[in-house]
């Protein structure tokens, strides 16, 4: 490593220097720039989905339906779910941070298929914009799950267009997954053996595996819906002896594994943050890797836990329940390992670390309530209530979105070459934690008391908890808006970060910030296991 004074100098030639015409962005094949394209797209979709969420929470402040009509309410939660799941959360960490970091973490110049990578972004953005438009104009009201026969035979809204759009976006997922997997298999730098991969790379690998194994099944399912609406070819039509439950099986065969697409990358990010700011090598690297892969594979055996009361056989239910309990084990192992990594570490309470702590706490609550839901007898009581809503938000928002923001803060200096405001970033992390719990904890209680999801009215008894939840949503919104402000500000005014402001290990920190076009002046050779923090203050440069 060179001396700090040298590194503090802004690198003369880097991937952002030169080329700020539109076509330098829209036609770039540089994985780092494509990462930025995804940042722009998913941030846009996140705020559209967020507006829908705020409207929902506003409606629910009072027991009666006053702000939105029942139909509009249905459209709002459909739009919220469709956008947040498919156009924000699934591409969130993999396509932004993953795009940016995977080649750098393994010492490669780019992904294996840079043009395909660009194509993925175009497919994703055009498909997603199309869906948002059709959902807005065509008033889709099926929820993000498109359950038949409502979606095929009854609703008169633009389900055909929406399903087609989600189908198209699925190809972007598949292409990205293939790209990452081939890259991780074939393009690791000399000495970067599998057991030296950073856990973020492992998590991305597992995520990609799920993307390519599960997404095609969703594609065909959506295609069948489209075909039924377009040509009248009924595959799930009960009048012909078709089975709507079959649709649910196919849908959840994708969508349960997909919930792991929405958490594994977050686990990967948090592993990087915890090790760096505890200045400690990760506890149980191998068990972490095995857990990641176990989650990815066993996640394929539990989809029926969404259908306990849908009419599947009791014996199937018993097996799905059992496997669901088992799939929680590797998640628990990971949580223990993060905690053990903190033990005797030198903990630095930076903003990324605060996000990481939030993640661990919120993910634990989300996971434990998942186990409650996986118990069949209890699920009969709480299925389709706000308890389920709270469960998955604790994991998807409390876990994944928090990890995403933690990761964005952690790698921001690398991506932009600039530091952001320490104070404001900590305020934002805190606002997020408080706002989140205020929003979603009351929903556990509401659900347990019997408030069903997807209704625009409720009995007056539930009002207090609903008001708390809506207030929390306001605080949460501040937690999300603040970073937008100070991070943008830092782009212009932040002080230069230098190559390695956090004193982190990992190849991405060995190159300048922002990195040169092909990441490394010379392809690095790896001779150490990951996380070689020696439990002492690393030299920070810059």
């Amino acid at each position: 490593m060179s001396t700090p004074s040298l590194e503090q100098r802004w690198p003369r030639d880097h991937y952002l220097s030169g080329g700020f015409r539109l076509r330098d962005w829209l036609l770039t094949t540089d994985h780092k720039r494509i990462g930025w394209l995804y940042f722009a797209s998913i941030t846009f979709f996140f705020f559209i989905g967020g507006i829908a969420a705020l409207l929902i929470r506003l409606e629910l402040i009072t027991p009666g339906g006053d702000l939105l009509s029942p139909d509009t309410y249905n459209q709002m939660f459909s739009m919220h779910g469709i956008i947040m799941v498919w156009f924000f959360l699934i591409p969130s960490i993999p396509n932004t941070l993953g795009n940016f970091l995977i080649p750098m973490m393994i010492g490669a110049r780019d992904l294996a298929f840079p043009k395909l990578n660009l194509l993925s972004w175009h497919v994703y953005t055009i498909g997603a914009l199309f869906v948002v438009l059709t959902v807005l104009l065509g008033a889709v009201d099926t929820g993000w799950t498109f359950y038949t026969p409502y979606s095929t035979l009854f609703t008169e809204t633009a389900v055909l267009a929406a399903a087609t759009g989600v189908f198209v976006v699925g190809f972007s997922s598949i292409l990205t997954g293939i790209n990452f997997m081939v890259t991780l298999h074939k393009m690791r730098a000399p000495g970067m053996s599998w057991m030296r991969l950073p856990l973020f790379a492992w998590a991305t690998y597992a995520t990609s595996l799920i993307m390519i194994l599960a997404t095609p099944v969703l594609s065909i399912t959506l295609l069948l819906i489209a075909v039924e609406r377009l040509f009248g070819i009924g595959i799930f039509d009960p009048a012909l002896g078709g089975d709507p439950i079959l649709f649910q099986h196919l849908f959840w065969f994708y969508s349960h594994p997909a919930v792991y697409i929405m958490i594994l990358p977050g686990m990967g990010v948090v592993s990087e943050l915890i090790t760096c700011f505890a200045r400690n090598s990760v506890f149980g690297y191998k068990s972490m890797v095995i857990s990641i892969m176990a989650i990815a594979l066993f996640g394929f055996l539990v989809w029926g836990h969404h259908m306990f009361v849908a009419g599947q056989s009791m014996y199937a239910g018993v097996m799905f329940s059992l496997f669901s309990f088992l799939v929680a084990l590797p998640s628990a192992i990971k949580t223990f390992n993060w905690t053990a990594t903190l033990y005797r570490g030198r903990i630095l309470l930076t903003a990324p670390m605060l996000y990481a702590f939030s993640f661990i706490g919120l993910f634990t609550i989300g996971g434990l309530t998942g186990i409650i839901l996986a118990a069949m007898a209890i699920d009969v009581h709480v299925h389709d209530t706000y308890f389920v809503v709270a469960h998955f938000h604790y994991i998807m928002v409390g876990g994944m979105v928090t990890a995403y923001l933690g990761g964005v803060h952690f790698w921001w200096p690398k991506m932009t070459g600039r530091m952001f405001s320490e104070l404001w970033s900590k305020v934002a992390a805190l606002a997020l934690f408080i706002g989140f719990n205020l929003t979603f904890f009351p929903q556990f209680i509401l659900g347990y008391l019997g408030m069903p999801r997807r209704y625009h009215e409720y009995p007056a008894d539930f009002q207090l908890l609903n008001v708390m939840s809506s207030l929390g949503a306001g605080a949460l919104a501040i937690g999300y808006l603040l970073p937008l402000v100070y991070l943008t500000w830092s782009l212009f005014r932040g002080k230069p970060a230098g190559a390695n402001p956090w004193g982190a290990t990992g190849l991405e920190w060995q190159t300048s910030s922002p990195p040169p076009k092909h990441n490394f002046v010379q392809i690095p050779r790896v001779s150490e296991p990951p996380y070689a923090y020696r439990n002492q203050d690393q030299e920070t440069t810059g």
Partner: protein
Amino acid sequence: MPTATKTRKPLGDQGPVAEQFETMGQQRDANRLGMWMFLGTELLLFGGLFGAFVTYRVIHAEGFAEAAGHLDLTLGALNTALLLTSGLTMALTEQMSRAARPKATFWLLVATIAIGALFIVIKGHEWYKEYQEQLMPVLGLPFSYPGEQPEQAELFFNFYFVMTGLHALHMLVGLGVLGVIATVAWRWRNPPRIARQVQISGLYWAFVDVIWVIVFSLLYLSRV
């Protein structure tokens, strides 16, 4: 027409390596692995459909078996034979392109395309026949089924059109790709590159073959 003079350019010349790769070997491996993975996803795409069909085939065993009897087994078998033959010509194309023989490569590609096109024509003819027999429950067309369980038969024919249609779509994509490669092979500029492209598209073509064999067994062969 590829000219004979360009024929025996040695394959040692590997052409430029794409900038993200270190060696041509790495690039070739990456491309091949990428294609295999893509085919895996395609298999799963059809897999969902096959899984759904098999489920119904078990639930509605009699109705489906009887409905299958209304498909034209002869034409289906003929198409199977054709497609397998095109698999052979494609495999030979690969050999020839690796041996750097432009003429043979080009004409074998043309043969593959011709057989593939013939398959589509026969398939179209079959669909037309079913349309005439009112066995096409698509777009509200009349469906008059002579057998016992018309609802289940309709479900069967729904699957039939989705499966064969999706397969035909894949065939058309394959034919397009082969057409492009045939023009590239005609010009014969960069033989190693052509050999790689033929190999990758040959994988895809073999996949389309395999899918058809499954479609054929599920739809045509599992009859009473």
